[in-house]
Each structure stands twice: as structure tokens, then as C-alpha cells.
């Protein structure tokens, strides 16, 4: 009887709903990963055996390796620059009064909800007028804008919980401003800084739209994948997609674990 009661109390409908939503979120990705190991070029069921041939193909393709290199450069640069700009700005925002803080955060968040397509064409126009042309650097400059809001959000959330009395105490005990920053503020915000840097790297590695309009000949990995999409049935796309997915989800996963430890 008791077992029956527990069975009745278990919210089966809720569990089913959550499972379906998660299935819906992850199934497309699982399909790409699955077919990247398919022995046959056909992307349809029934599945005809496993093979690593598509990985062999992409990891011996110089064009693709170059694109991977460009994507890596873009990710690291975006991560570093965003983390520095975001941390400095986050520390600056703390010094503002509530009203100014709200206003600054509001403006800082605009790029997050502004449509990427419209920003990308704006950048294209801008680069054309400046006469600097399209390049990987041009793309990175735009990707930094796109990830800054996320970084700022994570860092200011951490700083909001930060007890500034700690610094006051250190200063009262004779520590210099820089010394107090290095020994107190930095260790406390460092996990958030690193976490948001990884997030920015993930955003950059996965970014397609700004790269499409501003990278020119410097094709990143997503652009390479897109180029193959339109040509013909090319099963190596699954392998490229899987590499891309593993890189971005690993970064996002570590980042989310680092930054959400306290909030979880």
C-alpha cells in the first residue's frame, strides 16, 4: 500500500514533460554526433555501422585545419579582451550609485538582445567606410561586443555579493589599494572572471553571423561548415559539427559550473 501511495505521489506527468523538453533540446545535437560516426554517407535510418572515416577526412584537410586554427585564435582573443574589459567595467560599475548603475547596465546589455544580423551588417558598413576591409580581426572585434554583456553580467553578479568591508578592513590594517585588490578582490572574483572568459570563448567559437558578414576570406570553422552545406551532400559536415559542438559545449559546461556554483 505504501509503495502504491509513493507511486501515486510521483509527479509522472511533470517528469515526462521535462524529459520531452530536454529530449527536444538535445536530440538534434545527438543526431549530428551519431551520424558523424556513420559508415555510409547517407544521412538516414537504418544506421549502417560505425566508422571514423569522416574524422580522418577533416583532420587531414588543410583548409579545415586552417579554419580550426582561425576559430581558436578568435576564441582566445575574444575571451581575453572581453574578460579584461568586462572585469574593469564590472569593478567600475560597483563604484556608481544605484541609479547610474542601472542605466549603465541597461546600455551594456543592449548588444545581447540586439539582433545579430542587424549588428553584423552595421559592422560591414562601418568597416567599408573605414576602409579596413574584412578579416579575422574585423570579426573578432564584433564578437567581443557580442560576448561583453554576458561577461559583465556574470562579473557584476559576483561583485554584488562581494563584501567590500573586507577591503576596508585590509586598508585599515595598512594595506595599499593595489595590495588589497591583489590579495582580496582578485581571488574572490577570479572564478567568475575565468568562467566568463570561457563563456566568451564558447560564444566566439560558435558565432556565425558576424563572421559571415565580416570575415572575408578568413573563414572560421562555422563558415567552413556552412560553405559545405550548400555544395552537396557532404557527410564530413557531421564531423565538423561534432568538433564544433564538443569545443563549445565543453567551454560552456565548464564555464557554467564555475560561475553557477554558488547559485546552484
Amino acid at each position: 500500500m505504501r509503495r502504491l501511495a509513493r507511486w501515486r505521489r510521483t509527479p509522472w506527468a511533470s517528469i515526462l514533460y521535462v524529459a520531452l523538453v530536454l529530449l527536444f533540446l538535445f536530440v538534434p545535437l545527438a543526431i549530428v554526433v551519431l551520424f558523424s560516426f556513420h559508415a555510409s554517407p547517407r544521412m538516414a535510418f537504418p544506421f549502417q555501422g560505425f566508422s571514423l572515416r569522416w574524422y580522418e577526412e577533416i583532420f587531414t584537410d588543410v583548409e579545415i585545419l586552417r579554419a580550426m586554427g582561425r576559430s581558436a585564435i578568435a576564441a582566445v582573443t575574444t575571451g581575453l579582451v572581453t574578460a579584461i574589459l568586462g572585469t574593469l567595467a564590472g569593478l567600475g560599475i560597483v563604484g556608481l550609485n544605484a541609479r547610474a548603475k542601472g542605466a549603465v547596465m541597461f546600455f551594456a546589455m543592449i548588444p545581447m538582445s540586439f539582433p545579430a544580423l542587424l549588428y553584423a551588417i552595421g559592422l560591414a558598413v562601418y568597416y567599408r567606410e573605414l576602409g579596413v576591409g574584412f578579416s579575422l580581426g574585423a570579426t573578432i572585434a564584433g564578437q567581443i561586443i557580442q560576448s561583453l554583456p554576458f561577461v559583465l553580467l556574470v562579473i557584476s553578479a559576483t561583485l554584488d555579493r562581494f563584501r567590500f568591508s573586507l577591503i576596508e578592513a585590509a586598508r585599515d590594517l595598512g594595506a595599499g589599494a593595489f595590495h588589497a585588490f591583489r590579495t582580496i578582490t582578485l581571488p574572490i572574483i577570479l572564478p567568475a572572471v575565468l568562467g566568463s572568459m570561457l563563456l566568451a570563448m564558447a560564444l566566439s567559437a560558435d558565432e556565425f553571423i558576424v563572421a559571415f558578414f565580416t570575415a572575408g576570406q578568413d573563414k572560421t570553422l562555422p563558415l567552413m561548415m556552412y560553405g559545405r552545406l550548400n555544395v552537396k551532400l557532404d557527410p564530413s559536415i557531421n564531423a565538423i559539427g561534432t568538433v564544433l559542438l564538443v569545443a563549445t559545449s565543453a567551454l560552456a559546461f565548464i564555464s557554467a559550473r564555475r560561475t553557477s556554483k554558488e547559485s546552484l
Partner: protein
Amino acid sequence: MKPNRIVTALQLAPASVYYSALFGAPLILLVVYSFYTTENFDFIPQFTLDNYVTAWTSDVYRTYFARTLRISAITALAIAVVGFFYSYVITYTLRAHRAVLYFLVLVSMFGGYLVRIYAWRSIFGAEGIANSALMSTGIISEPLDLLRNGEFAIVVAMINFYLPLGILPIYAAMQNVGPGQIEAAQDLGSSRLGAAGKVVLPLALRGVTVAFVFTFIATAAEWLTPQLLGGTEDQMIGNRIAYQFGAGFDWPLGSALAVTLVVVLALLLGAMFTLVRRWIR
């Protein structure tokens, strides 16, 4: 400790300069460009309203705008509904596991933009995975029309990519409504669904509205999903804008279409916010 004003200004300066130079300036220039003239495959600073006349009066573009707003509204609404119930269930019913269930959504938000669209492209289609799987198991004998590429495929793929973006604000808003408030409603005779509708929805309405607005804006400027998943009859205004910046090579017209889209979105969403605010009161 009183923060030093000069230090604060210096800390804010780099990001502010960067924002102005690489976000503000490009968007201002986009507006400026929408008044340029296209001549002999060049864009010259000769003030004209022709681009806007074309963007606003041409039946072709009106069709694109109407279709875009319809598809985006359907997608954003579906995301708000699915996201509301997902947030509700993980916040209250499966409370013990909410951290993990939220974390999974968070992780799925980053990564896989192009990969997802590509995956849906392989799933849909007459010979796609969905039809081939159903046919090989003998459930159907002919490919289903619904599972071919088209508006349905576009909407499904966009819900798939933007759902986490919708769950985020709704979940955040719900964290302010304790489970006690729902129990109270149920004790007073509300059904489970009734409690969700009468107690949680009004309190989380801000989050739901933000979710709708975010996803509506994002999908209204989509271009890759309709391009890869739809036929010529399913293309959205983003495709026209991208086309003018590509093969069409009429950047000023593309800019005018972009500015028009922003204005239309601002007016629509502004009106919506006003209505919601009145409703909450």
C-alpha cells in the same frame, strides 16, 4: 569606503570607448547608409528617401514583413508557453532537482547555432531522418508533408534554438514566488493548473514577457534558419536584408529594411509592454 571617482571613471573608460566605437558607431552608420544612393555598384552619400519608399510601399516587402511577424509571433508564443511550464515544473514539482534541470538548459543555450539548423535540415525533408525513420519502421508508407522543409520546420528549429533564451528569464522570475504561495492557493481549493495560472503566472508575468520579447526580436531577424529550412515561399525579411548585403548588392536598401525592422519591432513591443503593465495593475 568611498569609491574614488577617478578610479571608477578609468575603470569604465575602456569598455565605454569600445562600445561606442564598435557598437554605437556601426549602428549610427547603418542608419546613415539607409539614406545613401546606389549608383553603378557603389554607394554614394547623396541623401534620398527612395530606400524607405521602397521598403514601406512595395508589396513584396510588405509580404515579407507580414510573414516574418507571423512566424516570429508563433515561435515566441510557443517558447513562452513551453518555457513557462518547464520553469514551473522544475521550480515547484521537481524542486529537488531544479539546479540540474536548469543547468542542462543553460548549457544547451551556448553552442550549436549552425549545427542545430543543419541537424533540423537533416531531420526534415522528404528523405530526411524523420520520414526515413518512420518509413523504415513501417508507421507510414509515404513521406509526410508536415515533415518536409517549410514553415513548420522553420518554427520547430527556431523554438529549439531559442527555447533556453526564453526559459532563462521565466525561471529567474519564478524564483521570487515561493512554493508556499502555491500550496496556499491549493489549500484554498485551486487545482494544480489553477495555481499555476492564478498565482504564479501574474507574479512571473514580467519574466514571461521578457522571454516573449527576447525571442520575438531574435527570431524576427532570423535569416539562416529560413534560408536552410524553407523554400522561396517561406523566406523572412532577414533573408531580404542579407540578400541586399550579398548578391543583391544594394546596401542602402538593405540598411533601410533593417532600420524599418527595428522601428516595427520597437513599436510593436512597446505597445505590448504598455498593455502588459496595465494588465498587471
